[in-house]
């Protein structure tokens, strides 16, 4: 190898060193003074706000390059992003300091050796803290939701859902950054976490409309499992797997617009009476749809559902309206229209959990709308954020 010729271009510059003396001597006018030299640096993350959003962009046309945006709802601006690989499943830790991403990579872009990993991102720096290599079983589904990857309520364990198509979960010890074990879930899917006293539990939806609940010990070993009676009818009116977490479990809506609550606050799962978001007259004509079609704000007990007019098979159509229902009185409080022509229908939604909540709405055109969750007023609109926003998170 011969490298004897002059081998560097002569005019490359190091830009960290703006020289302000230089500016002072050459200013052509006496006033105003020239702009000061700037110094290239890396922006620091601001202090955490409950109005931060974590938005998963699947990048469906370039699916090996998914990413998670961190977005400041108050200032209507992106704070930065994480890489999220291929079909990344995302969860933010209960202390909102870490974003966990379970995803798949290849040694050569989309080919070569497959490696599934669980990556831990530092939310205070937007930088990668570390990874755990997983077995190559991670569930890959476009139906992103809060329970494809989930933290236990105390942040101690992470539950990674697997599908090969055999279904199982891997239990990760978060502090030790270690996979404790894998538990078969009998073809049931999701990982809805709860704690009963000191017992860590994970619940999941089964094909026959039942809830499977698995209790595990601190070593990640299953200690018991129980199966509920059927609480929904898969054939007559299935519930979406994309649901919203509540302090005691989850709200799922059904294709026809009924609300199914899973209450895991007691020793056995409870299923409070099902209630409708649609009137008898609307039923079958208006229905929930999209990708993450339900949001919830606990202290004001409001449920937000993306609704559209349509028939069977339209359950992935975004909402032309957001319907707001009181979860205690079951009364509808509002119907807010989405500018479908401009943004497409409401596709994903999440409400912040503070006392002045925002409702984030990602649309079919991958716009991001920031609404006042109390009044429905549109506070800010990002015409396009990423390529295909498929999940919104706000721990």
């Amino acid at each position: 190898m011969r490298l004897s010729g002059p081998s560097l271009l002569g005019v490359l510059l190091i830009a960290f060193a703006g020289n302000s003396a230089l500016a002072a001597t050459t200013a052509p006018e006496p006033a105003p003074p020239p702009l000061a030299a700037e110094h290239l640096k890396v922006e620091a993350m601001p202090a955490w706000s409950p109005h931060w959003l974590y938005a998963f962009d699947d990048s469906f046309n370039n699916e090996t390059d998914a990413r998670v945006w961190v977005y400041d709802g108050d200032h209507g601006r992106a704070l930065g992003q994480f890489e999220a690989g291929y079909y990344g499943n995302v969860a933010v830790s209960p202390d909102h300091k870490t974003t966990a991403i379970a995803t798949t990579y290849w040694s050569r872009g989309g080919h070569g050796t497959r490696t599934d990993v669980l990556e831990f991102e530092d939310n205070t720096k937007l930088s990668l803290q570390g990874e755990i290599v997983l077995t190559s079983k991670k569930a890959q589904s476009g139906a992103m939701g809060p329970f494809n990857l989930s933290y236990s309520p105390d942040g101690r364990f992470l539950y990674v859902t697997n599908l090969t198509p055999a279904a199982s979960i891997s239990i990760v010890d978060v502090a030790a950054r270690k996979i404790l074990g894998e538990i078969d879930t009998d073809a049931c899917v999701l990982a809805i976490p709860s704690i009963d006293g000191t017992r860590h539990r994970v619940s999941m939806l089964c094909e026959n409309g039942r809830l499977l609940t698995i209790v595990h010990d601190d070593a990640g070993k299953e200690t018991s499992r129980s199966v509920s009676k059927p609480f929904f009818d898969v054939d007559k009116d299935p519930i979406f797997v994309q649901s919203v977490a509540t302090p005691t479990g989850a709200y799922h809506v059904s294709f026809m617009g009924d609300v199914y609550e899973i209450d895991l606050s007691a020793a056995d799962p409870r299923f409070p009476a099902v209630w409708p978001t649609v009137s008898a007259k609307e039923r079958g004509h208006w229905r929930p749809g999209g990708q993450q079609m339900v949001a919830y704000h606990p202290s004001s007990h409001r449920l937000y559902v993306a609704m559209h007019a349509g028939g069977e098979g339209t359950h992935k159509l975004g909402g032309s309206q957001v319907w707001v229902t009181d979860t205690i009185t079951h009364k509808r409080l509002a119907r807010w229209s989405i500018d479908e022509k401009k943004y497409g229908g409401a596709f994903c939604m999440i409400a912040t959990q503070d006392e002045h909540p925002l409702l984030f709405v990602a649309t079919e055109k991958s716009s991001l709308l920031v609404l006042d969750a109390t009044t429905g007023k549109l506070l800010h609109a990002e015409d396009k954020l990423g390529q295909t926003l498929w999940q919104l998170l706000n721990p």
Partner: protein
Amino acid sequence: MQQRFDRLVERASRGLARRTSRRGFLGAFGMVLTGSALMPLLPISRGSRAEAGEPAAPGTGKPMSPKASASDPNSCDYWKYCAIDGFLCSCCGGTSSTCPPGTTPSPITWIGTCHNPVDGRDYIVSYNDCCGKTSCGQCTCVRNEGEKPMYRLSLNNDVNWCMANDNPNYHCSVSVIMGVAGK
């Protein structure tokens, strides 16, 4: 009778699952289902006739005027695509039933029923993914007649059906006619 047969096959396949590795199981399962065992397991979609904008001619149950695009394999309206969620392989170098060169079909898949407005028949189709290259990115098509959530995996089009391939990278989707649906 069909229900009982379903349970039998299911029990047999679960037995297999317990005794074999993942890949070994899929191979064996494939053999079990090939041929006459196929029919009883097929779920029948009720959706194809209910499609908005396709009113039935009175008394016939057939649509009066099928859309022209319903016979164009490059259009999402194509009758065979009644529950595809993904990129149409016909825009990616394949056809409505063949994978593009250099990709690999998914051996596992899900099954639906689509109504063909030209001959008035309902056909059983399998929706396979073609795998091993990054997203085709052309002709995104989302239709969901009879589609169910992930806990009913055999009727779900959200999961990546390339999941069991050596390279599970999703490229595009096809719709393959298996036969006329029983009435």
